[in-house]
Every structure is written in C-alpha cells, then in structure tokens.
C-alpha cells in the first residue's frame, strides 16, 4: 500500500490532464443525460425533441473531435493513466462514428417500422447516444479493461436497439439471437482476457513488459488467449466464424438499426483491432502468433463466405448483411498490411463503406415504406416508378461493388495499393492471396449487387402494388449520400487526405 501512494497522485494528475483531451466524450456523457432528461420531459412528441437534441449534440461532438484532430496532429497521447490512447487515426474513426451516428439518428423516424413503434423513439436516441460514447471509448481503449468495458457498453446498447420493436416477432427473435450470441462471445472474450492477463501480468496493452512476459509464456496458451480475445472483437466485426448472427439480426432488426449495426460497431471494432495489434506489430521480435496469417486467412474466408453466400439471397437486407460480411473481409486486408498507409486505406475504406451502406439501407427502408418491398421480387419494375431513388441505389451499389466512378472504387484502389506496397517489401504470399481473393470476390459481389438494378429496371412489374406516401426527406438524404459517393469517386483526395 505505501508504494501505491506516489502512484495515486500521479494517477490523479493523469486524470485531470486527460480530461482536456476527453472533451468529445464528456460532451457525449452530458448529451446522454440531456437526451434522457429531454425524453422524460417531452413525453408526448414521440422523441422529436430528443432527436433534434441528439443531432445537435452529435454535431457538437464532431466539432469537438475536429478540435482534437487539429490539436493532436501526429502525436500519440495516452490518457487516464494509459487507459486510453489517442492519435490521428483514432480521432478520424471517432469522427466517422459521429458522422454516421448523426445520419442514423436522422434516419430513425424516417423508417415506417420504427416510426410506428408504440412507445416512440425517445429511448432509442438515449441508447444511441450512450452507445456512441461506448464506441468512442472502444476506439481509444488501450487496456483490456477498457476494451471489455466499451465492448459491453456497445453490446448492451445494440441488444436493446435490435429488440427495440417489441411488437415484432422478427425483432424479438433477432434480439434473442443477438443477445445470446453476443453474450457468449463476450464471455469467451472475457475468458481470453483473463488468460491474457495472467500470461502477461498486465492489463495495459502498451505496457513495456507485455511482450517480454508473453514471450516467456507457453505459446499455445498465448495463442489461445489472443484468439479468444480476437473472437470478441471479431464478433463486432462479423468476421468468419463469428458472423453467423449477422444475416438474421440484420434482417430481423428495424432497418435503421441494421444501418447502425452494419456501420458503427464495425468501424469501432476495426479501430480496436488495430489498437490491440499495435504492440505486437511494433515489437519486431514477436513471433508467437503470426497475426498476418491468422488475419489473412480470416479475411479470405470472410470475403468468400460473405460474398458467395450473398448470391442466394432474396431479401434485400439479408443480401446487404452478407455483403457487409464480405466488406469486413476486404477491410481486414487493409489491417493486415500493418502500415501507416494501410491504416489510412482502412479508414478511407470504412468511411466510404459506411456512406454507401447507410445509403443502401436507407433505400431499402424507402422501398419498404413506399411499396412494402422487402424482397427482390417486390422490386420488380420499381425503377420506372421511383427513378431518383433507383438511380441512387445503382450508384450506391456501384460503390459497394467497387466500380468506377464511385468512392468504393477509389477505396478499393487505395487498399490494393497499400497491400501491394507491403507485399513489395516482404513478399508475403498471404498478401497476394488476399489481393486475388479481393479481386475475385469483387466479381462475385457484382453478381448479387447487380440483381437489385436488375429487378428495379430490367424486370417488368407484374402487379400494381399498393402505393404508400413517399418520404421526401429520406430521399433527399439518399441523394446527398449518393452525391458524396460520386464526388469522392472523382475527387477522393477531398476525404482521403484527412485520413
């Protein structure tokens, strides 16, 4: 105990120092409270006030992040006694999360299913705000504790969101599957963490003794521990073999929730993965677990599984779910490079993916709203009825496939070049295999992505479906997202240079 005393003051200092760089998260915390309060105060407007507050708050957080972005420059900061790490790439991811969260919050009431939810959406905004805080911490976490904490925080929020529509059986089923799978995954991860803690003797990933201790331990045990931890992260990323929940949950959840699930936790998960791997990669003597091979194999299988299985899908959301799995695999490719350029590429890829995926899901929601169209068959001939929406759909799918002129193509090129660059130095065959798989699955992905335009434009409508009022605002949002996709397709440097 006596030896702890000087530590305490140092720790307290660290906490107070860290607070200044914790502004966005503090904002989020306050926002969470405000939104909750607001929801309680304005019970009768079905969450409209909360939504506005959330949006404004998120924008504020974004601005705060921007401040951090400028402040940090290229420095790496450890906050709160090395519990959190803050650097350029983290902040970028945080900003991405904020921006995407902003879009999703806007999206919430535009979806018919959610809007008709009996209890209004006030809770949902509270939950989202809390989860964004969790996501921020997840991105920044530098110890096993913060990792677990943040993941659980996000998970609980996600469980709630998935099961939010209590009136729907699908939603409940998805919630059950998600919660069981998620809890199992986190239990596994926690067990891994405990082993890792025992083997390394520290919870801090950036502890000086970490690598040395692990190198002294039994390598099979180390591997087991690492893999169990990776399983926890992989669950958030939906990497094979932890992807099984994805199609069912994406399909069962309300579309905005699907949008949330397919972007935010994934982005944060990648940030976390990179942070977790950094100490191992930074130490050149580390060779107990060959992360390149493990992640490459996972990436390859994920790409194949996601894209190939998507070919069979008829439900649009399910199709997008599988495609999301495929994209995870592709993004893993960028992680595997373990180079600054690779991280840049990863961030850009994630940003572009988020934009396109959000847009696509919004359109799925749009068609579900207006024509009750959920399966491909229901899309027959809608292209002529809703030309703007359908053209936007095509643009977004083009971006998801990675064909020019779209942001997705540029993202793909940048990822490819990052991998190539690393290959040129190390000649690791896994990287080449990743490249080739990436290319093959691109072709395969076209096979199913193109089905949507195929049904929209090429098939003729058989029966006149009942028409519901169209959602102009949603459409405007989609058009904006499509415009971003095209703009980034022509001038990728607008965004990519910020990464």
């Amino acid at each position: 105990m006596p030896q702890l005393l000087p530590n305490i003051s140092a720790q307290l200092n660290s906490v107070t120092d860290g607070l200044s760089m914790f502004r966005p998260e503090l904002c989020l915390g306050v926002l969470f409270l405000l939104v909750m309060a607001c929801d309680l105060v304005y019970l009768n407007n079905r969450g409209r006030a909360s939504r506005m507050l959330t949006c404004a708050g998120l924008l504020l957080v974004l601005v705060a992040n921007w401040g951090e972005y400028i402040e940090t420059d290229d420095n790496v900061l450890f906050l709160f006694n090395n519990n959190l790490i803050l650097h350029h790439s983290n902040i970028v991811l945080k900003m991405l999360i904020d921006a995407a969260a902003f879009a999703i919050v806007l999206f919430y009431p535009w979806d018919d299913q959610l809007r008709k939810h009996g209890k209004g959406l006030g809770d949902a905004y509270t939950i989202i705000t809390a989860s964004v805080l969790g996501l921020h911490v997840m991105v920044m976490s530098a110890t096993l504790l913060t990792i677990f904490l943040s993941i659980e925080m996000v998970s609980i929020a996600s469980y709630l969101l998935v099961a939010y529509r209590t009136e729907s059986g699908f939603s409940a089923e998805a919630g059950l599957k998600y919660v069981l799978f998620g809890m199992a995954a986190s239990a596994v991860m926690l067990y891994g963490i405990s082993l890792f803690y025992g083997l390394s003797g520290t919870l801090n990933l950036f502890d000086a003794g970490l690598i040395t201790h692990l190198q002294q331990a039994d390598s099979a045990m180390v591997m087991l521990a690492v893999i169990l931890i990776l399983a926890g992260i992989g669950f958030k990323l939906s990497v094979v073999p932890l992807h099984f929940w994805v199609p069912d949950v994406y399909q069962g959840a309300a579309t905005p929730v699907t949008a949330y699930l397919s972007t935010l936790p994934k982005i944060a998960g990648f940030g976390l993965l990179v942070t977790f791997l950094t100490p191992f990669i930074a130490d050149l003597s580390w060779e107990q677990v060959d992360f390149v091979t493990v992640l490459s194999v996972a990436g390859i299988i994920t790409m194949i599984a996601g894209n190939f299985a998507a070919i069979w899908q008829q439900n649009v959301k399910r199709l997008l779910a599988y495609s999301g799995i495929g994209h995870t695999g592709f993004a893993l490719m960028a992680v595997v490079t373990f180079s600054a350029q690779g991280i840049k590429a990863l961030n850009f890829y994630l940003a572009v993916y988020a934009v396109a995926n959000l847009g696509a899901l919004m359109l799925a929601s749009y068609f579900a709203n207006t024509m009750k169209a959920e399966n491909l068959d229901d899309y027959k001939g809608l292209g002529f009825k809703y030309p703007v929406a359908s053209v936007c759909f095509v643009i977004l799918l083009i971006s998801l496939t990675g064909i020019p002129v779209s942001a997705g193509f540029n993202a793909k090129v940048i990822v490819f070049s990052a991998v190539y660059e690393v290959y040129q130095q190390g000649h690791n065959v896994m990287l080449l295999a990743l490249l080739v798989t990436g290319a093959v699955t691109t072709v395969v992905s076209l096979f199913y992505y193109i089905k949507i335009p195929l049904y929209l434009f090429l098939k003729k409508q058989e029966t006149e479906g009942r028409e519901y009022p169209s959602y102009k605002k949603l459409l405007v949002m989609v058009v904006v997202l499509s415009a971003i996709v095209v703009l980034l397709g022509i001038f990728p440097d607008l965004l990519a240079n910020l990464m």
Partner: protein
Amino acid sequence: MITLTHYLLVSAALFSIGLYVILSKQNAIQILIGIELMLNAAILNLVAFGKFDKINNGGQSFALFAIVLAAATTAVALAIVLNVYRRYKTIDPGKINQLKD
C-alpha cells in the same frame, strides 16, 4: 494449499460446463445461466491472477467491472427473452428460427 493451478482448473471446468450448457440446453434462460458460468470462470481467473498484480490490482478491479456488466447484460437478455416468449410462446432457441436462409 490452494495454488493458482487449482483456481485455473476450477475456472476451466466452469468455462467448459458453461459452454456445454450453452450448446445443449433448450431453454434460453438456461443458456443465460451457461453464459454466466463462463463469465464467472473468467472472473475467477482474473481474481486469481490479480494476486500477482499487486501494484494496480488490475485483476480485482476488472472482476468488479465484469460482475456489474454481466448483471446488466443479463438483465437486458432476460427482457428480450421475455419479449420473445410473448411473441413465440416458447423460449427454446431451436424453435425460434423464423429468420434463416
């Protein structure tokens, strides 16, 4: 003398039992119990290892966090299970398979 090895063995056993329960039981609540077992196995590990981490007491504090989070998660899970029961009149996860390929 109870050594670290004993703790670890007990925890491994708990983990395995939890896993078995998860995979075999046809009741969502029982599965939740299985998950709790697994979590407890991990917590046991953490505490056991925490003995050697005198300076930060990381293990112990982690265990506290884990217990709290497990409780929170379980609460959410139970709520969901309840809701599922309302819709499906069963809580056998094997029978709740409307969403599939």
